[in-house]
Every structure is written in C-alpha cells, then in structure tokens.
C-alpha cells in the first residue's frame, strides 16, 4: 500500500468497553449525616468531601460574602490546632485541606492516601466543628478580600462578569451580589458574623460525607460515625429521628433563591476602559436552575451553540471570522436560576460585527432545527466523553457531591448517557425557544468606548448606556486573589 492509500481510508471505531458510572452506597448516621461511599479499584488516593447544603445564596444581603469568608477562615486555626498548626498537620499527611463555599454549598475536602484517611477525617472534623475564627486572622482575610475587589476592577474579565450579573438580576436577587461580597458588606464582617454563619451551617441533616477511591478494607461509615458522629451537637441541635440505612430521612426542602430578571428589552451597557485592545463581551439573561425537566435537551442545545470546540459560535466568530481566540455559551445552573451567557473577548475594531454574529447565532438556534450532523456531534461527544470525565476518584466524588447539593436522584448520572442519546432536533429547538430570549438580552462590555460606542449606537442592538467611571482613588485594602467566584 502506498502512503496515500493507507491514509485515504478512515478507521472506524472498535467495540466500546462497557462503562457505567460507579455505584455509590449510602449510609445515614444517627445524627442524620449521610455517608456516600464509592469504591474505585486501583486508586490509592482517596478523595473525601464533607458537604453542607448551605452557601452564599442563603446568607442575608447585608452579610454578603460572609459564607465564603467563613470558609476561608476555617483553616486558620481550631481548638486543638491553633493558627497554622492545622495546615501543618494536614501537610504531614501529604494533603492540603480545602474549605470552600460556593453559591449553593460549603464543602471541606481532602485528598489523601487510603491508609491515612482516618487521620485526614479527624482534621476535616476539627476544621468543620471547632474553628476558632481568630479575630486578627479574620481581619486579615477580610482585608485581602477588599484588596481583591480592587484587583477585580482592573481585570476586564472579572469586571465584565460582575457588571453582567448586576445587569441581568434585580437587586433583590442574591445572584445580583458578588458571592464573596463587595466593599460595603465585607468591610463590616467580623468574627461574630462568621461565628453566626458557621453555626447555621452545621446541620447534619443538611450534610453529607462523600468518600471515593480504593476503599478495600476500609469501613468508611463506621469511621465517619466515630469521627463525625458528634456533628449534630455543634449545630442547630435538631436531631433526626429514625435513620434507616439506604434511605435518607426526611430532608429539609432546599430553598429556591429569587432570580428575577431586571431586563425586559435588550440593553447595551458599555464600561469604558481606555486603550483596551479587546472588548470583553457578555450577552445573556437570567437562565435556569439545575433542577429542570428538560435538562438534557438544554445541555445538548448549549453544546451546539457554544459548548463544543466546534460550536456554532466558535465556527463563526473564531474559525470563520478570526474575531476572537475563543467564544463560549452556556447555562450556569445553580439551585436557583443562574445566568445564561455568551462569553468572549474580541478585537476592539470588530466589536460591533462580533456582537451581530453572536446575536444571529442565538436567533438561529430558535428559528431552525439543528442538522442531524450537529445533533450527532454533540450527542456523541457528551456520551463518549462521559467516562473520561470520571477517570479519577476526585471527579467521581465531586459529581456525587453535586447530586447531593442539588437534591437530584441517585441515578441521575447513571441515566445521563441514555437521556442524552434520546434528545432530538425538535427537543433542541424547543429548549432554545423556551430558554433563549433574544428580545431581552443584556449586552455588557468592558472596552474602549471612544472606539466602539459609535458602532454600538449605529448597530441599534438596544438602548446603549456608556459608563465612563475611572478607577476610583480608593484607599485602604485591595489585591489579587485566588477567587474567581464572581
């Protein structure tokens, strides 16, 4: 065979190896704490995640940022391990303790050799049950957040995300706020507020321990009972009655946050950043919560629009026009309706044309059926990549934690591929028609208004508002942080 003959023949796939999402076992401790374990053979590193169904969305508006700040402060010292000793104790086990809050949940997690799991759980318990919130460390973390807010204003990407949230939600919605809080609320946070947040967090009936890895020879539920069994006493004090293994006891209903739209017709909001060589652009509106009946159709639709590498937006704005290094679109699904957004950064000179193309892709998603080839590409990718997503225990544990946080059924992931397979072109179009609203978009930009405002005005996408505020001369604290929580 010549090289030409060899390469002219495309290979066809072999027989796929059977795959199913790892099964997990559930035990409910007398306190109400659920223990979810998943055995992943051959993986000596175990991932343990202690999750509480309470997040930034549940905090009062005037304490915005308190939950995330409390999470950060929980590794700053406990009764038994003052100061940095907690961190050091974890490091001696070869692990790093993570305590993180998101909109929907707080989670303390650790990755550790299976033989050291018990010692690591003891540290997790210490962190969660007995943090001391030293006043001076709280003050330092608060100042670091204030510094981070200053840095945020200087970073076009973070600044546009913030402006976008504040454009699409009414001020009554928690999602209008920054999850980690802004200056007006963070400045006021002290040890006392964090202690209050911590107390509200600690309900065993709203918490689960998820452990995954090679669990051969480990009785994780028993270990959890011995180490975390007293969790109830630290919390709100409610005790669960009859805990039956295999079936969770009556769960308190998850609260559904307000997520009202502030936009009733398309608007354009341009934040002036002189000399910007690109415009950071966000286009969208209030999207969807995680618990919806057409979840799988929405996911396929979003993949075709802006999720795949070869999504419609990418093929148009990147591979055809060269306007951008990358463009994506999707729904950030939370307990309440998170945002739907098209996200990109485009060369300043083509800002208007790039937005026109993005808008036409949004309309096309609603107006016509996707082709069979597009549908197959998205469906085959989502089904095929599923095992790759769950190669490590950390990923499996994270996904099971996600089910718990959102109150989803245990078989949600096991059914995922079948349900994706069944999505039709009509389902995709219906999802677009139901959930994409081109007539009431917020188009939010951070860019050089002196160059792009004229084009945006002329294009007539919607009412244009140009915000020319410069970086304020703020004194006090500010910084670059690890938080991309905005």
């Amino acid at each position, binding site marked *: 065979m010549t*090289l030409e003959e*060899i*390469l002219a023949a*495309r*290979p066809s*796939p072999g027989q*796929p*190896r059977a795959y199913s999402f790892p099964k997990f076992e559930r035990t409910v401790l007398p306190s109400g704490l659920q223990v979810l374990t998943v055995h992943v053979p051959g993986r*000596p*590193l175990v991932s343990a995640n202690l999750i509480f169904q309470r997040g930034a969305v549940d905090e009062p508006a005037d304490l915005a940022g308190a939950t995330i700040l409390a999470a950060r402060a929980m590794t700053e010292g406990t009764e038994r391990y003052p100061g*940095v000793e907690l961190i*050091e104790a974890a*490091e*001696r*086990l*070869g*692990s*790093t303790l993570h305590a993180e809050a998101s909109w929907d949940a707080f989670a303390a997690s650790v*990755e550790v050799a299976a*033989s050291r799991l018990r010692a690591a759980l003891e540290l997790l318990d210490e962190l969660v049950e007995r943090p001391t919130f030293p006043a001076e*460390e709280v003050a330092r973390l608060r100042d*670091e957040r204030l*510094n981070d807010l200053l*840095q945020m204003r*200087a*970073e076009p990407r973070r600044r546009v995300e913030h402006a976008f949230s504040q454009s699409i939600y009414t001020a009554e919605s928690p999602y209008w706020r920054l999850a980690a809080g802004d200056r007006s609320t963070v400045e006021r946070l002290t040890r006392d507020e964090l202690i209050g947040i911590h107390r509200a967090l600690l309900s065993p009936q709203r918490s689960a321990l998820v452990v995954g890895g090679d669990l051969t020879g480990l009785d994780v539920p028993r270990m959890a009972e011995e180490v975390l069994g007293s969790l109830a006493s630290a919390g709100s004090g409610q005790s669960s009655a009859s805990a039956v293994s295999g079936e969770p006891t009556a769960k308190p209903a998850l609260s559904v946050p307000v997520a009202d739209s502030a936009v009733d017709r398309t608007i354009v909001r341009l934040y002036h950043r002189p*000399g*910007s*060589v*690109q415009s950071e652009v966000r286009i969208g509106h209030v999207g969807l919560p995680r618990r919806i009946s057409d979840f799988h159709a929405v996911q396929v639709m979003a993949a075709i629009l802006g999720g*795949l*590498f*070869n999504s419609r937006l990418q*093929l148009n704005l990147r*591979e055809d*026009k*060269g*306007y*951008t*290094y990358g463009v994506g679109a999707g729904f950030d699904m939370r307990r309440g309706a998170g945002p739907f957004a098209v996200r990109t*950064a*485009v*060369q300043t000179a083509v800002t208007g044309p790039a937005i026109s193309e993005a808008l036409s892709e949004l309309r096309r998603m609603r107006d016509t059926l996707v082709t069979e080839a597009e549908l197959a*590409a998205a469906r085959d*990718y989502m*089904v*095929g*990549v599923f*095992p*790759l997503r769950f*190669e*490590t225990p950390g990923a499996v544990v994270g996904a099971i934690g996600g089910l718990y946080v959102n109150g989803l059924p245990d078989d949600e992931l096991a059914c995922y591929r079948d349900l994706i397979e069944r999505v039709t072109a009509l389902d995709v179009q219906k999802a677009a028609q139901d959930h994409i609203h081109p007539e009431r978009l917020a188009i939010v930009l951070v860019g050089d208004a002196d160059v792009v405002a004229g084009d945006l005005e002329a294009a007539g996408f919607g009412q244009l508002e140009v915000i020319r505020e410069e970086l304020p001369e*703020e*004194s*006090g*604290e*500010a*910084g*670059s*942080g690890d938080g991309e929580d905005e």
Partner: protein
Amino acid sequence: MTAPSVSFTDERLVNGLRLIIAEDHMAPVVAVCIWYAVGSKNEVPGKTGFAHLFEHVMFQGSRHVAKTEHMGLVQAAGGTLNGTTWLDRTNYFETMPSHQLELALWLEADRMATLLDALNQENLDNQRDVVKNEKRSSYDNRPYGQWSNKLQELLFPPEHPYHHPTIGSMEDLDAASLEDVAGFFRTYYPPNNAVLAIAGDVDPAQARAWVEHYFGEIAANPAIPPLGDLSLPATLGGERREIVEDRVPLPRHYFGFRAPRFGDPRLEALEVAAQILAGGKGSRLYRRLVREERIAQDVAFFTLGFVGGASIAAGQATVRPGVDPDVVERAFEEELERLGREPVTADELARARALIETYELESLQRVEERADRLAMFATLLDDPDMINRQLERYLSVTPEEIQAVAAEVFRPDNRVVITYVPAAEAAAGQDEETAA
C-alpha cells in the same frame, strides 16, 4: 503509599519515530500524545511567534481531513484534544475512549504526512487573526500581562533564542507566509523529530501495528538543522531591574533567576525549595509576608524547566496598599537568601516531601498525564524511564542540596526584579498596539 510504577515499551520505527506504549486498563480511556522537538527556540529573528502559529495551522486540516474536522472527529468520538507550544517543544494530544484509539493515530499521521496539501492563505490568515487575539487576551489586555515576556527578555541575552516570548510579536506574526509554514513543516515535523506516547487501555500489539501502518511510510528528514550552542553562564552576572507602569491598583514584584537546566538534580532540589518557600499556607513566604507581617496580598514561587542554557526560577509578591514596595522586596529576598545560609528544618522537608508525593500520585492517575510525561522525558532528556524515578529523586533531596542550590541561584547578581506600579494616567500601559 507505593511509588508509582509505569511500565512501558520504548522503540523506534525505521523512519525514526519514537514510540512509547504504557498499558493499563483501569479506565476505558487512552491518551495519545505526540511531542515534536521544536519550539520557539527554533525561531529566527523576524519570525517570533511562528512555532505557535504553526501549531494552530496543524488543526486546519490535512489531505484527508477538512478544516475544523480534526476537532470535530475527536469530539464526536467522545475525545478531548489540544496542542501547546513552549520554548523547547510543541505537543499535541488526544484523550479518547479506548475503542477510538485508531482514529487518533490516523489523525496524527495524516497531518504529519500531508499537512501542506490542505494549507492555504485563507486558513493561515484566519489563524493569524486567532493567534493575535490570543496574544491580546493572554498578555496585552491583561493587568501585569507582560511579566513573563519581560522576564525572558531580561534573563537571556538578545542573541539567545529564549530571549523572545513564544507568543511572538504582532509584527512578526503579520510577516509569516505560506512559504514559512511549508519550510517549517518540512524541516521540523518529520517522524524522526517526534515522540509518540500512548498510555492507558490499549492492546500494545494492536497499537504498534496501527502505528506501523499509519506512520511507517512517512519520510524522515535526515537533515534537521542543529540549534547550535545554547549554553549560558550559570548566573546573570549582575542584577537587572525594570519598573513597569500599568493599569493595576496594587504594585507587584516579579523575581527571576537563572537556574540549572531541566534534568539537573539541582533543579529538582530547587523545586523542593519552591514548595518550602511558597507551596501553600504552611510555606515560609506565605507565613511571613502574608500571614505574619501582612505586607503582601499574595506570594508565589516556581520553576520553569528548560533544556538549553538555563531554566528560570521565578517568584512574585503583590504589595498591600499603603506598604512600601521596597519592604516587600527585601523580605522576599531575605527568605530566598536565608535558604542559602541555613539548612531547612526536618519538619519543613518532611511536609514538602509528603505534599510532593501526593501531588505526583494524583497527577499520574490520569492517562493523559502519563502519556505527556513519557513523551516529555523522552523528548527533552532521552529518558522516558524518568517517569518512574522522578518521585524518588524529589524525595531524596537533602537539606544540604537545597542549601547549596539556593546559595548558587538566589544571588543578587543573578536576579531580575520587575516591579509593576500603578500608572499615573489611567490609559498608560501595556497594550502593544495602542501605539501602533
């Protein structure tokens, strides 16, 4: 915990392609990773940024694969993919459900054999625009965005190919022509300049047969031009400083040092030192500058390993409002220099080792990482078995070795300090194109 052990085969096809296969069946996935021994160090003056632009062209199709089809086929097969370019090398990788391995091999072979058949001006111009937008996104429109480019510029002399950044300049990107692409492909993309690593759920005999079939007939280039002598004095020979005005609210220092080359055990000692200096909240710099003295908002320290001339050891500290940047610089440098004066404590070293061990085990869980490291060690050190010795080498680093390399590297006359300060005017700055 047991040390990771990756068993693999290592062979060469007649045309020089190096093939490494590591079989394990833990998950039904397989990674294909191909490293070409060409990077931005092979660029000539006036053509900076070309190796990376070329990497983009590699996704624009080949004789039997249409534009955008490479991505499309891999994704439809349930795979993920990407490519990256760096000073010493360019790599391309696909992670696939294991029954789709042959597709990934065919795609890599088709572009290695026939890329130029699909090359046209329209695709080149399109990817030039995409890459220029990548440069704007990643460097020019980003606060502090030029730090790494400036660090290379100051650490390496103008005639050295590490002097210029991999992303290149707008002017040079504009100058890239179809002839440049063709010449670069013929010179640097033959099978004898590549290492192909396959890791995961694979039948080695079948994989070997497919590789022979698809790659075996691709012609070698017997005349890959050698790079010449990249060696450099071990130290800079005098401190270099730059102050950069930018649209940033907080000042920030970036520190850079010439360091031993990739593969030198002293660089590994330096990596352990970096863990002790800034690896998390228990580290020296974090404790002193962030937690105790509260003069910095954040700190970092890390190494960038290169095989030609010298590696880079680099750090950063963001200055808290109201704090004199000089105070932060002195504290940072004191901690580096202290490492050269006194041995680290047994407890610090034990914690660093434990964290490195977990990190290594965590990384090697994924087939993509195993394939990548095998190809990396084969390409850069001609020693793929380093994948099995790396952890042991980190764990055997002694306090004396850390002290010795710190004393060699963290010297004022081997130091670059780049200090970002808030610009007086809001529009002053870093945007390369604003002047153009």
